[in-house]
């Protein structure tokens, strides 16, 4: 049975503000999931807390609306428990790079086969407009009357420098492109990261909305970027914050083994060395007889 994008749409009506970029993201996810061809009950969608973390409820996949910042550890637990599930993780920039920032690095190191989609709007929307870790320097918000004094996190460079084997970026201003990178991320065997520039219409900056995305976005393919070149990817990722590159920054030419694969390999290795169960029982019985005598 082949699923259509609409089969992944749940009956819940999104309560995002009209015009929110996340509407486009969820549409792109429907398309990507349909293209991948897995059934809704084969998929688990884990999120943290935030506007964007409502997303699992809007799909027909299994959903897990978890703890603020902890979507990645929960998703890892889920995937380890049931490796056959296709596990998607979604969250915002605050969830991923502020309160959950510590988890991203270790999810990458562990390389469990997850797809992590961050809806990056450079602001805290759910709590009504506070500074986020990706807010640009100088941004005035309700919690930064002096303007943001801290350098923004560059999510692309962050994950690249920890060795993420798949790193891409998209925007709902380019639906087809976004659906394509999410599909490719899902298909990638290992940890894959998609940063989606998903503007906040209510608290975001007026000059960084979908209209501006459309005008300035450049696909990496059109720039002739080779996604196997991690150094070039890092150079391009430096543009985060003033340029909008879409497409795949880096795809490891030889995907490193996943955690699951390594565990199985080690187990097989050990299995050869261990005594079979019957032999162990025999030894026990002999020992027992010896002590009894």
């Amino acid at each position, binding site marked *: 049975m082949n699923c259509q994008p609409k089969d992944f749409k749940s009956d819940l009506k999104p309560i995002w503000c009209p015009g929110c970029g996340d509407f486009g993201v969820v549409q792109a996810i429907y398309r990507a999931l349909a293209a991948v061809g897995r059934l809704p009950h084969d998929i688990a969608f884990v999120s943290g807390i935030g506007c964007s973390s409502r997303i699992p409820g809007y799909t027909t996949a299994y959903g897990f609306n978890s*703890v603020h910042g902890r979507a990645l550890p929960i998703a890892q637990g889920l995937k380890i428990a049931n490796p056959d599930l296709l596990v998607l993780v979604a969250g915002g920039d605050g969830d991923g790079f*502020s*309160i959950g920032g510590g988890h991203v690095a270790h999810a990458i190191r562990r390389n469990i086969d997850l797809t992590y989609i961050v809806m990056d709007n450079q602001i805290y929307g*759910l*709590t*009504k407009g506070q500074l986020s870790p990706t807010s640009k320097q100088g941004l005035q918000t*309700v*919690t*930064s009357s*002096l303007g943001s004094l801290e350098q923004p996190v560059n999510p692309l460079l962050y994950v690249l420098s920890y060795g993420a084997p798949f790193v891409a970026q998209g925007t709902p201003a380019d639906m087809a492109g976004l659906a394509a990178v999410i599909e490719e991320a899902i298909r990638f065997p290992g940890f894959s990261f998609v940063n989606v520039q998903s503007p906040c219409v209510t608290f975001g900056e007026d000059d960084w909305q979908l209209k501006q995305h459309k005008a300035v976005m450049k696909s990496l393919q059109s720039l002739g970027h080779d996604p196997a070149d991690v150094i070039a990817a890092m150079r391009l990722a430096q543009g985060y914050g003033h340029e909008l590159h879409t497409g795949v920054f880096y795809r490891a030419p030889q995907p490193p083994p996943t955690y699951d694969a390594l565990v199985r390999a080690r187990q097989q290795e050990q299995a050869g060395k261990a005594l079979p169960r019957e032999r162990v029982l025999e030894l026990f019985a002999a020992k027992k007889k010896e002590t009894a005598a």
Partner: protein
Amino acid sequence: MATSLETPKPKARKPKPQLDPDLCKGCLRCIDSCNHHCLVPGHDIDPRTGLIPIELHLEACTACGLCFDACPEPYGLRPERLEEIPTGQPEFERPTDADHLKRPPRPKPVDIPDVLRELPLGATLVLKGNHASAIGALLAGCRHFYGYPITPSTEGAELLAKLLPKLNGIFLQAVSEVATVNLMYGTAGAGLRTMTFTSSPGFSLMLEGVSYMIGAELPAVFVNVMRGGPGLGNIAPEQADIKLACRGLGHGNTHAIVFAPSTPQEMLDLTRQAFELAFQYRNPVVLLADGYLGQMTGRVELPKALVQPGLPKWAVAGDAAHRDNLISSIFLAEADLEAHNRHLDDKYARMAREARAESWQCEDAEVVIVACNTPARMARGAVAELRQRGVKAGLFRPITLWPFPIDALAEALSGASRLVVVEASAGQLEDELRLAASHAGLALPPLAAVRHSGGVLPQQDEIVAGALAALAREVTAPTASKSADPCDCSDPECGCGDEE
């Protein structure tokens, strides 16, 4: 060649080891390295160090030098000086002899007391509870705020974000509640006033740090604007964290004074007092508000004075006087930790005198309604309505939940035959009340409950109905005695353990 004809120089004698016993910690590594058994474990404790230095018997020493390498102490076992080192050429010096390392006598730290500055009497303000609490903190001299946005508490942080930069203060939005509490730990260690606004799930995250701060005896104020739980719950008001704040402030033997304001005015006054008590007892103080109270606007009068904070002498303040101060919650020796816990227990016992409550119309009350935070407002309305209907009702409102104002409750209950506990939680306030009564040996009259949770608040008519039903209900158990002495009979039929 000429040189080969010269008589060979006598071979320089290799140096044998020498040891300053003060600098030997008795680790015995040199003994393992010596092949000639020249070094043996010592017997006598060095009175200056309290350690047992090794002893040297160098008759068999070949000056192989292996022991020098084995010694981990930079000034420990080292080659003997074969010739006097010319003056003016310092070799390794014993650190204790080096003049530049000798500590100059330094001033003793003293408490710099707070100064009260009179405030001009201003107009009455109309403030949100969260804003009132933020202003209370400013008037208490708090200039360091750390926090993480969480509804329904964020307005307090937002106001401080606006005001603190203008007052040479620091507002910092942390990356999480875990970061927040540790930023506070640092600032409190420097002896400064610090606070945060948070709500239930955020407070849960802070508890590890709260336990550390209690262990290290540091003052700070946590305003927890409680919301519905468990888990993510919702952002509506609940009294969900009474148990957490009164009984579960992180691991270990932890307690803190817990305030339960019920008006914006109290949000301001109690926040201000919270700082005072935090520094008086060197312990965190928790202000438990609820989602309604945080968002509710009300009339607020400013106090007559504001506090210009001093500096406590225990602070790690970064000057010569405070150099010996150490902030720590680690006591590795079991007996030390027990002694520290005893000290904390004494402190908690002293805090009992901070118990506060309001009794309203309890003097002749037959039914006493107990409530705090926003539910106390409905309870007050219910008491007024019951009085209008000719029912002698009274309101007992604990203002501190820990320590629980049990003496005041005993007085309020002196003529009461029924007790109604009204709360927006599944019995957390009642549990605190029962526990306090049990410890105090106070026999409670038959107890009824009006409870809601999930963000639904008990309404006035429900409370009235609950009180009337409680009064109408026949009491099968013997009427509880109002005396402070508990019944200590062992008769299972007596029913002295049952309240209902």
